[in-house]
């Protein structure tokens, strides 16, 4: 049993124990969850410290680390076909930072759930199941295994939103579930197509191994997704392009991109605070990770072909999300739309196909991970107290809750890309990469970079406007005295949750090498894989 298996299944174990707890001991579920997640964080810390950043990973199994490969399902189909599904895990520079991020955000979410009273056991068991699935997605190197974890993520989220959510929780939960399922169902078709196209060079059997899928030599001569002499078309579109597009749409729904983003504001607004934290902090990153590892890793030729469109979608998401955020009156919805805008940078960075851009995109994912977690948590702080989060119902919070205001101001300025905080590094490198694209020859025009930088300007506009409207000026609340007494300043528990996230934002802003160093080799490998098709 390797480190990664422990990392993945530790929370599942905790969930099983929770379910066995008697009703009288239901309160201890949260301690179990906390212990499991803390254990995971320690483990990821260990993995991070012992990670060899000279190893690239991506398409070479030997340079993956903490690899575990067991044959899982072997099924003889017909005379000469062998179904080969492996339990295959490993880490490289793309997955390691996301693993650490997931552990941190999960811990924050557990902290934010401390006061849950409605069916505590079920709640924490579902959180732990989600935790297992998330870790599995980031570690899996077998496409079948990846898909299993990917689908398992949906189930706990559906119930977490649908049971513990707000007023329109059923609507939001169903919308979220069906939207994501829509993408992943088609993804399954592509997975099967890839399976029939790729053979394991060692055994000759068809395989779900992602690393084999990245090697053009493993594709059958005239197989459906084959590289050379591929005449397969669907509606006149080459098969490989269709495969790429379907996988991209599946992950893009998760990111989310405009116009496939409308599940996100609803899910966020209805979800309880901890689920919002996980949704924004981890789930969206699965999309970006999938695009990098799978869409670009397996279809680098198509990525090189269509990166102009990816960049366009990225810029549209940035600007459209930012303008929509500007129009919001509900603070949580504003932050949800700002997520759309900030995740647009991830897509723009990926589309540049330059080391700067992709590194920036990865950095932006990490940074947005705990910053959005902190932002949603901060919204939860006032919502918990007065069950309202309409921007116009609050004024002058700075005089009333000074400590809270300091946290909000730091989180806002960090999110709007103030240097010294992590978001700046991510966004700046996406922009630099986008400008560099023309020089390197990956074909992203410079107006896209300029469009992206206007998004940076707009993020300052909506965050500062919110600060001005809610926090500054003379104190005045819609709920009057009643609210004034309810709105006490942040508690110790809340501060303990916020400190690490904001500290990480500063630490990574000052020492970006903490992320760039393990990342660098992998990104360079990925770029070199793509650049041979430019």
């Amino acid at each position, binding site marked *: 049993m390797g480190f990664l298996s422990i990392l993945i299944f530790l929370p599942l174990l905790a969930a099983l124990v929770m379910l066995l707890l008697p009703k009288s001991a239901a309160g201890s579920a949260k301690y179990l969850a906390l212990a499991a997640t803390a254990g995971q964080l320690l483990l990821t810390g260990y993995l991070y410290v012992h990670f060899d950043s000279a190893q690239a990973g991506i398409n070479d199994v030997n340079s993956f680390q903490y690899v575990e490969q067991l044959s899982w399902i072997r099924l003889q189909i017909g005379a000469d076909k062998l179904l080969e599904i492996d339990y295959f895990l490993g880490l490289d520079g793309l997955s390691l930072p996301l693993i650490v991020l997931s552990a941190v955000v999960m811990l924050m979410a557990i902290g934010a759930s401390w006061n849950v009273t409605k069916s505590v056991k079920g709640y924490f068991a579902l959180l732990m199941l989600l935790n297992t699935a998330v870790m599995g997605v980031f570690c899996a190197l077998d496409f079948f295994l990846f898909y299993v974890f990917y689908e398992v993520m949906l189930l706990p989220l559906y119930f977490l939103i649908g049971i513990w959510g707000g007023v329109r929780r059923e609507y939001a939960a169903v919308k979220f579930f069906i939207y994501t399922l829509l993408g992943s169902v088609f993804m399954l078709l592509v997975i099967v197509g890839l399976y029939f196209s790729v053979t394991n060079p060692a055994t000759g059997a068809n395989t779900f191994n992602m690393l084999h899928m990245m090697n053009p030599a493993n594709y059958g001569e005239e197989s459906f997704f084959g590289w050379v002499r591929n005449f397969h078309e669907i509606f006149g579109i080459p098969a490989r392009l269709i495969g790429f597009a379907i996988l991209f749409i599946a992950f893009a729904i998760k990111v989310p991109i405009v116009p496939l983003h409308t*599940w996100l504001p609803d899910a966020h607004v209805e979800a309880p605070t901890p689920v919002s934290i996980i949704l924004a902090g981890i789930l969206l990153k699965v999309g970006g990770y999938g695009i990098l590892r799978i869409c670009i890793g397996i279809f680098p030729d198509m990525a090189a072909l269509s990166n102009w469109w990816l960049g366009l979608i990225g810029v549209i998401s940035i600007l459209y999300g930012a303008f929509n955020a500007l129009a919001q009156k509900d603070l949580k919805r504003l932050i949800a739309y700002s997520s759309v805008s900030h995740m647009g940078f991830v897509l723009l960075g990926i589309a540049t196909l330059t080391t700067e851009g992709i590194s920036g995109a990865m950095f932006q994912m990490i940074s947005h991970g705990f910053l959005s977690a902190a932002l949603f948590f901060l919204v939860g702080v006032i919502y918990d107290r007065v069950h309202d989060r309409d921007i116009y119902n609050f004024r002058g919070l*700075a*005089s009333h809750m000074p400590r809270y205001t300091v946290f909000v101001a730091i989180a806002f300025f960090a999110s709007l890309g103030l*240097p010294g905080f992590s978001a700046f590094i991510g966004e700046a490198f996406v922009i630099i990469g986008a400008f560099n694209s023309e020089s390197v020859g990956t074909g992203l025009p410079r107006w896209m*970079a300029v469009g992206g930088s206007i998004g940076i300007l707009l993020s300052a506009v909506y965050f500062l406007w919110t600060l001005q409207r809610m926090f*500054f000026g003379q104190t005045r609340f819609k709920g009057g005295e009643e609210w004034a007494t309810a709105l006490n300043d942040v508690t110790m528990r809340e501060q303990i949750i916020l400190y690490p996230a904001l500290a990480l934002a500063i630490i990574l802003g000052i*020492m970006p090498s903490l992320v760039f160093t393990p990342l660098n080799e992998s990104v360079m490998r990925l770029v070199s894989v793509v650049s041979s098709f430019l």
Partner: protein
Amino acid sequence: MMNLLHISPIHASLAVLLFPLAAFLYQALRGKQDQSGIVGLLGILLSTAASAFFVFFPIWQQTPVEATASWFTVGKHTFSAGILLNNLTVLMQLLVCIIALPVHIYSRVYMKGDPGIHRYWMYLSLFCFAMLALCVANNLLLMYVFWELVGFASYLLIGFWFTKDAAVQANKKAFIVNRIGDIGFLIGIALVYAHMGTLNLSELFGKQSPLFEQIPLWHTERWMTYAGLAFFVGAMAKSAQFPFHVWLPDAMEGPTSVSSLIHAATMVAAGVFLLATVFPLFNESILLVIAIIGTITALTASYFALAQQDIKKVLAFSTISQLGFMVVAVGIGAWNAAIFHLVTHAFFKCLLFLCAGAIIHEMAHAIPAAAKVDPQDMRNMGGLRRFMPYTFILMVIASLALAGFPLTSGFLSKDSIVIAAFEWAVERGGTYLIIPIVLVLVSFLTAFYIGRMIFKVFFGKPKLWSDEKVTVFHEAPKGMWIPMAFLGLCSLFFVFSFNPISHQNAALMQGLTLLTGFQPIDSLHMFIPIVLITGSAIGWWLGYRWYVQGKYPFQENNAWVQHAQKQAYINEFYQFIIVRSTLYLSRGLYWFDHYIVDGLTNGAASVTRAVGRVSAWVDRNLVDGLVNLVAQTSYYAGHLLRWVQNGRLQNYMGFAFTMVLFGILYLVLR
């Protein structure tokens, strides 16, 4: 002795910026418990000492020194962080220290008793740290980091009184307008990185570096023009150049001590500093744009300054106008003159603001709280020279320096710009002469508006107090006028040049020698100062006649005065055109998102549900109906046949006979 005190300039320079950082962190951790600001003061005091003795003197006129450490690596490029010390950077660092120190001392009295004073000290230290680091950063990315951080500190300080609506509107405006510039700076960085592969200043612009040789060759390329424009946009926002100047007058909502340090002397000059740093990037056309924008800024701002009634607004527009002078100097290629003016301007403008602060302080104390009178409005002042003689003298010195009278530092630096502008224009001839002529005109206007301010504030009779013997007014306390006196001293000529009429001898100009593209014209060095002095003197004389002797020739509030006072309605224009349209656009897009994009999603859901209902209907009524039809049919058939078996023999016989009959009929008819 010197050996004992030998500290490497790099370490000393690092210490210069770490002292305020340490002070900031200390004050951030102590929070409300630290009201005195002694730590902040100590930090800047140590910084000033270190900067003067261990950085400036060892480096000035010596070979530049640089130290770098790798910061992070992306791809094959390693981004470094480091310190570059050359004449320009050590001068800027020392200047910031020397201005910040008296402002700190002054603030201890000026801000005393403010409930948020712990925040004030914290923000001030943060600003000092960022600004000092900005001066010595050795690469553009690092410079950008501190560039935005000074903007952030300025945001915090403008909105220091955050319960005041005007203050929080102003700080938002300042940050957003500066953000536009920051985007420009960032785009410039990205372009330079994409084409030159490095952001290190000495690799780019070091005289020995191979890249530096190639830069002039690239001047014809289009990206170079864009990059130059992008950097200039960055400088325009920070240095409040037209049309991005709108944030600076509003920024006067901050405490006056802050206005003096940040929005007059140091931060706003950072744009000029940036232009001087990346100067080799600018090609001819960009330089011309820079000169034109600078001229427009100088002219419009001095025009707006003529009609302002708020004492701080007059000074704010005067700052913008003087920044315009510096930008023109960069545009004509004489960035050393720009830096010279930056330095002299820092002292006298800081002093002007501190004097204004002293006056506002006294006004605010003298006005009863119930009377809703604006303590900053010059219409409420008058005759103050009898009550505040030190402030009066110091403010007059600073005003003379601003107006460019001989024996002041302003005379030296302003003349150097105007003369260079003439030399530059004469070489090009024709319409280029408009620029220096406008500068001369602006100099006259400057003399007039600052004279107007002095006369309105210090001469005439007090407006609010009929009894002249009233003793509500005092001289500013010692803690305030001593730092002011120090700045007053620095506004005089001998600090910069022992020759009071020649700027060429100024040590500062000799430290920043550069080859300009135009020939010096000796006659101008005689002629220009005389014109400027005469014009300025006329300006003061007019001011005296109009405002002291009361011979004001125009109607009060005529259209031009209104126009100037409202700043040519530029703010209203921005509000109605840009801000509103952005908001409408965002609301429109949200409507689109809510009703069209999400509507499509919900529509798809509804269609799916409708299809479901239809198929359920089909299933129930057609498919199942068919099944039921079959069942019903057989049931009815059975039902019909059932009465055949009713147990009556006759019926059975009749039935059998009928069937036989049918059989026979069939056989017969076949």
